[in-house]
């Protein structure tokens, strides 16, 4: 108790509020009297001289007028924010907008699975892109060229092309979208095709051809899957120029046609042998061809 009291008096003393009687009480205790001596001696100590002017000059030399410093600082902040935004955006692209693109070259085909195990066959010189991370919420992809889909049953599956889009729930179908031709073949189930402002239903075993945004034909198909998957291109009453375009996609050739009247072609050609393929096209149309390296020359058969 007594010690607590003296401690209290000591603090009063150090705070300069102790009365003379209290100081005498403290002095009577040897411990506290030596505290007082220490305190009094320390009081007479001094710090080294504060070099007021030198320090002020040092500070002044490092100061910048705040009215000048502000814009730079806020610009720095803008840069920082901009950098953060860029980083976040890039991160966002990586994390959430990870678009997958699969493409094929001339004479190349690809077969792959989408995240929901739907199957895609991609024909030559075509491209598909989709967002793998959002696939579960939205089965949607972009197509340029031609592809055959075996869609797993589930949510709406849509194929977007420059000429329109195709929507299904779960079927097998082929989409061709090149130049001005948009052709959809449905092998199973029901496909809904939208182009310009029209929507048509394409049932199984049917194909439609839309040329220049005008629906021109709806016809039956006999096969269970497109022939190009079996490395063969099949045509029914198709203009020779379109047939030759497909030929150029399947073989890396430079095609030169001379004086050829555009006829319609019905038949097929293989993707495995250029010579055989050319023969299948030329023979029915009374055409001749020569192959020189990558140059393929087509001309009308001379009448014997």
């Amino acid at each position, binding site marked *: 108790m007594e010690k607590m009291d003296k401690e209290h008096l*000591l603090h009063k003393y*150090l*705070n300069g509020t102790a009365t003379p009687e209290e100081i005498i009480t403290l002095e009577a205790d040897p411990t506290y009297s030596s505290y007082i001596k*220490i305190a009094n001696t*320390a009081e007479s100590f001094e710090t080294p001289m504060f070099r007021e002017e030198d320090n002020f000059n040092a*500070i002044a030399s490092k100061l910048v007028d*705040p009215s000048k410093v502000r814009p730079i600082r806020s610009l720095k902040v803008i840069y920082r924010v901009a950098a953060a935004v860029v980083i976040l955006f890039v991160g966002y692209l990586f994390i959430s907008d990870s678009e997958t693109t699969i493409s094929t070259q001339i004479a190349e085909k690809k077969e792959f699975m989408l995240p929901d195990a739907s199957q895609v066959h991609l024909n030559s010189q075509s491209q598909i892109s989709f967002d793998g991370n959002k696939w579960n919420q939205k089965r949607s992809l972009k197509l340029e060229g031609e592809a055959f889909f075996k869609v797993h049953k589930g949510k709406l599956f849509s194929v977007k092309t420059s000429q329109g889009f195709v929507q299904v729930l779960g079927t097998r179908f082929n989409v061709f979208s090149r130049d001005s031709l948009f052709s959809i073949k449905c092998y199973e189930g029901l496909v809904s095709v939208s182009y310009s402002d029209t929507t048509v239903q394409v049932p199984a075993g049917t194909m439609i051809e839309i040329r220049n945004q005008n629906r021109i034909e709806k016809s039956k198909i006999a096969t269970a899957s497109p022939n190009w998957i079996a490395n063969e291109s099949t045509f029914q009453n198709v203009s020779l120029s379109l047939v030759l375009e497909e030929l150029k996609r399947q073989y890396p050739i430079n095609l030169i046609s001379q004086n050829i009247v555009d006829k319609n072609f019905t038949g097929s050609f293989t993707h495995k042998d250029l010579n055989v393929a050319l023969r299948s096209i030329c023979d029915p149309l009374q055409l001749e061809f020569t192959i020189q390296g990558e140059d393929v020359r087509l001309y009308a058969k001379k009448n014997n």
Partner: protein
Amino acid sequence: MKIPNNVCEEKTFSQIYNDYGETIWNFLYFKCGDSAQADDLVQDAFIKLWQNCKKVTREKAKSFLYTVSNNMFLNQVAHHKVVLQYAQLQPQKVDTQSPQYLLEEKQYHQRLQNAIANLTEPQRTAFLLNRIEGKKYAEIAEILEISVKAVEKRMSHALASLRKEIEEI
């Protein structure tokens, strides 16, 4: 037009330096015991004040300087055990002591200085703010952002260890 109540005016700023420069410098010197380091820190503290002049009112400048100094000191990782080098003692008022007494007195001062240098930084700062700067406990509590009770504790501990070191040698 109203004069903005911040320290961005050069006049205000140098007034604050005149008022508190030495106090802050001493405060830093108590902490680190090194003039050059105290110089650096006091300069940095006032530069920080200038950079934040729009946010700091005149009245807040002092506590801003203390807070900044405190933080800057803590940020200086490499502060080794300090050796305080106090300036010459104040001349004795009475000049008629015996040489024996003067010698003892001198030795006592020396021991006390060493003992102060050996205190922990929080104890030394509180003790010297009180003894040399003549700050009341309440002011010390405000500067160090601690309670008055904690100041009492630091003072008691400081005195106890000073006494122990001086009298046991």
